[in-house]
């Protein structure tokens, strides 16, 4: 992109760019170095701030710490996501189909449900379940994740249906398929396929949002960092946080990469190219 804006750089410009790169690199390095120096001055890198990960105090073994974080913490996070994701997909699919109904008054409830749930914070819906219905924290988290993401997923599918060439439906009607048959056997499979990358990015958002369980009192990965820090002492917060944050990053980046990979595979053959939306948790 930037290369078309200029003429091909001559020797002078290339030298300037090289100098700029070196200077920019020095600035970034200096900032990183300053941060590290500051942290080291605060004793962040001393072994007794990190031994909780390999030789924890209080008669615990490293295995106990790692089990509580990876198995119980991440396990609880994944359990909520693993229940909410299929529910949101199925309900989102139903809503998307409902919304394509031809009669306005049949379509209306689906429109209201979608607009309502995608306009509200996930956290609020978790509180509805937790305080309003009196459910336990796990069910509240699953409820919040499900109702929000089903609204977003149905919007994604609707965009997928809208992006299909008109001829697909016309051809289906021409060979005598009914509306339902056309929708289920011709349009929907194509819409799901073109929207697969967006659907996967939405699942990443769902997984990220499960960390809201921390606020409603669900014992997930963040809570396990806090519990461990409270048990072993606050000086271990940094070490435990680094591990927790790394777990989130690894899982989420892996899923995002999967979305990109699938997009590359599907766009090679599928006709309409739909760019992966910039998905932000809560973006409409």
């Amino acid at each position, binding site marked *: *992109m*930037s290369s*078309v*804006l*200029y*003429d091909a750089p001559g020797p002078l410009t290339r030298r300037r*760019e090289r100098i*700029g*790169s070196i200077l*920019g*690199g020095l*600035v*970034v*390095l200096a900032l990183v170095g300053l941060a590290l120096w*500051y*942290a080291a001055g*605060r004793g*962040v890198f001393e072994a007794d701030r990190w031994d909780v990960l390999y030789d924890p105090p209080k008669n615990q073994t490293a295995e106990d710490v790692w089990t509580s974080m990876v198995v119980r913490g991440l396990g609880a996070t994944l359990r909520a996501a693993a229940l909410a994701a299929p529910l949101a997909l199925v309900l989102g699919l139903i809503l998307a189909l409902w919304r394509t109904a031809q009669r306005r008054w049949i379509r209306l409830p689906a429109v209201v449900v979608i*607009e*309502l749930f*995608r*306009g*509200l*914070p*996930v*956290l*609020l819906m978790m*509180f*509805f379940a937790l*305080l*309003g219905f009196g459910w336990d924290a796990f069910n509240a988290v699953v409820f919040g994740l499900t109702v929000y993401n089903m609204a977003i997923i149905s919007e994604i599918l609707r965009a997928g249906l809208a992006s299909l060439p008109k001829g697909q439906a016309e051809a289906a009607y021409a060979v005598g398929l009914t509306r339902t048959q056309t929708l289920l056997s011709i349009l929907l499979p194509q819409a799901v396929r073109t929207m697969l990358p967006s659907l996967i990015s939405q699942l*990443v958002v769902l997984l*990220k*949002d*499960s*960390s*809201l369980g*921390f*606020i409603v009192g669900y014992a997930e990965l*963040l809570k396990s960092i*806090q519990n461990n*820090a409270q048990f072993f002492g*606050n000086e271990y*917060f*940094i070490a435990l*946080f680094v591990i*927790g*944050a790394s777990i*989130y*990053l690894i899982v*989420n*980046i892996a899923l*995002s990469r999967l979305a990109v990979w699938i997009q590359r595979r599907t766009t090679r053959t599928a006709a309409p190219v739909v*760019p992966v939306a*910039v998905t*932000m*948790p*809560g*973006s*409409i």
Partner: protein
Amino acid sequence: MDVIVDNFPAYLAGFSMTLRLTVVSGVIALIWGLVLAALRVSPITPLRAFSTVYVELLRNTPLTLVFFFLVFVAPQFGLLAPLGFWTAVIALSAYTSAFVCEAVRSGINSVGLGQAEAARAIGLTFGQTLSMVILPQAVRTVIPPLINVFIALAKNTSVASGFATVELMAAGRRLGTQNPAEIIPVLIGVACFYLLITIPAGISAGVIERKVAFAR
């Protein structure tokens, strides 16, 4: 529904906090996000790398984790974040700026290559190409996704309620504990205030999107 009317001042206080969080973080995120986007398309590799790493990290981190870091972990470094408004602003704007950067970058990328080539062919300089041909086209495609990012920001301010900021969500929880029998109406009141922000913004994003839509 009396409980909503009776506690209207509490709702309004929470709502104005939510609005202030949204506006202040939104402005900071917009500026920082534009800087990140500029770094990301710049020819200077280390700056580009910095911006890429920043955006990738923040995009793949839950917002709760950013708050968690500022409130629980940063004090262990000796960085004492003041609890409340400014902690929330730092967390929200650091997080949102990554998405602003992505939206702006995809907008710039959506302008066809031929546009820049044509501008150069008629002898426009780099500055003219950028300011008269590329940016005007980029801005109109960027505005709808940017509005969506800000809608998300408005909803994300609710996360601050878990970290000692009394905004709309926290005000609602307080009212709920004071009126346990009427908790559902209380929460419906909270929902209405959020919808007051998100639905008009969503509609305007849709209108702008239709207005600026053109064939490329």
